[in-house]
């Protein structure tokens, strides 16, 4: 048993000079992909959330429909549509761009809901008071609503980041050169699937776990703050 484990680990030591640099580069792409699509999703999500709360019925209807559709379709279907499905129409993305757009479009639907819930959780007296002391609607949003909503929004937002990090693995299926694809290619070349997929799993875990712990910690901190405000 001990020998088996030692043999198993020995393979990593022997192959590390070959695998190491490739895996390292692939992890970089995975992180880039996560950060880029998360940024896009936040910007788009905020616009959608504001659109859902706007005065214009048409804009509202569009944003509601977008959120429903984005949340109802798997990321893989969106990625295939972007990467393969638009080619006949003359729209060609490279795999990385298609992945960022696809993940961003999909995650924006979820983030819009998170942001809207956070913003609407702020008592409307806050806004009224800010307007009453002469703040412009923009200032109210920037200095009164957002800072308070931010605390409610942060834990689910971090959760979304974890989901995105894991979803980047799906981009390997449209040949984005990220961790999962690199692991799969190396597994095919070396005939060591167990070693490489386990390695990929461990790397994803090492990336996602600290975020999970941070999310849980933030949730606890948030609750503490809320209890104090109500003086219980």
């Amino acid at each position, binding site marked *: 048993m001990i020998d088996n484990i030692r043999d198993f680990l020995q393979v990593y030591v022997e192959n590390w000079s070959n695998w190491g640099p490739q895996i390292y580069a692939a992890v970089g792409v995975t992180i880039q992909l996560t950060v880029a699509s998360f940024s896009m999703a936040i910007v788009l999500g905020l616009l959608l959330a504001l659109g859902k709360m706007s005065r214009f019925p048409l804009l509202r209807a569009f944003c509601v429909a977008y959120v429903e559709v984005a949340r*109802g379709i798997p990321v893989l279907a969106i990625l295939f549509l972007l990467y393969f499905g638009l080619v006949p129409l003359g729209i060609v993305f490279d795999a990385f761009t298609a992945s960022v757009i696809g993940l961003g479009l999909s995650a924006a639907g979820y983030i819009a809901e998170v942001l809207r819930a956070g913003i609407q959780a702020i008592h409307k007296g806050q806004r009224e008071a800010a307007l009453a002391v002469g703040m412009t609607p923009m200032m109210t949003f920037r200095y009164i609503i957002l800072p308070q909503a931010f605390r409610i929004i942060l834990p689910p937002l971090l959760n979304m980041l974890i989901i995105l990090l894991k979803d980047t*693995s799906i981009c390997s299926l449209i040949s984005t050169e990220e961790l999962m694809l690199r692991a799969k290619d190396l597994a095919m070349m070396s005939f060591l699937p167990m070693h490489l*997929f386990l390695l990929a799993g461990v790397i994803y*875990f090492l990336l996602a776990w600290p975020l*999970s712990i941070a999310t849980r910690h933030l949730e606890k901190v948030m609750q503490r703050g809320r209890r104090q405000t109500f003086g219980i």
Partner: protein
Amino acid sequence: MGAVTTIGITLASFSGAIILGLALALIRLLGLRLINVLISGYVEILRNTPVLAQLFIIYFSLPSLGIMIDPVPAAIIGLSLNGGAVLSEVFRSGLNAIHHGQREAALAVGMTPWMNLRYIILPQTWRITLPPLGNYAIALLKDTAVVSAIAAPEIMFWARNLVTSTFQTTFVYILAAILYFCLSFPLARLVERFERRQSAWL
């Protein structure tokens, strides 16, 4: 065709995930320290790695240990193991949400621990966990798309095959997206109704 497989895989892994998740959550209640550490290790690992990596380990890596599994069973096993980890947290918070007086009262009137679980605790937990369970079912339905990567013949897999035979790339992938939406949208409305009904009597 593909839609039937998608629904089948979703239902099978949903049942698997519920059984596994409930079992893990109940075992955790026993308070055995070593087992609890093992279970939370399992939950943390499965929740913090992509489903795709788990599926690849089951489908591509296990054959090197001499364990061969067909695509559809491999998909169901992978999604059930993953879902079990997610749902065990859902059930755990559901079980924790029930006031401990409920259990004490049930035992005080002479119920056995099993009867307490069966007639007092689980029916209440069920009500609390129904909305998150529904949300998980929707997530699972969409996760089945990933299963096409290990060649299980569901919607995305059929879409890819159709594309290679008809070259109607745009049309086929839009159709696939619409099909998923038609499956997940009614489910989402159903979950919303459950949520509303629940908050009505709470």
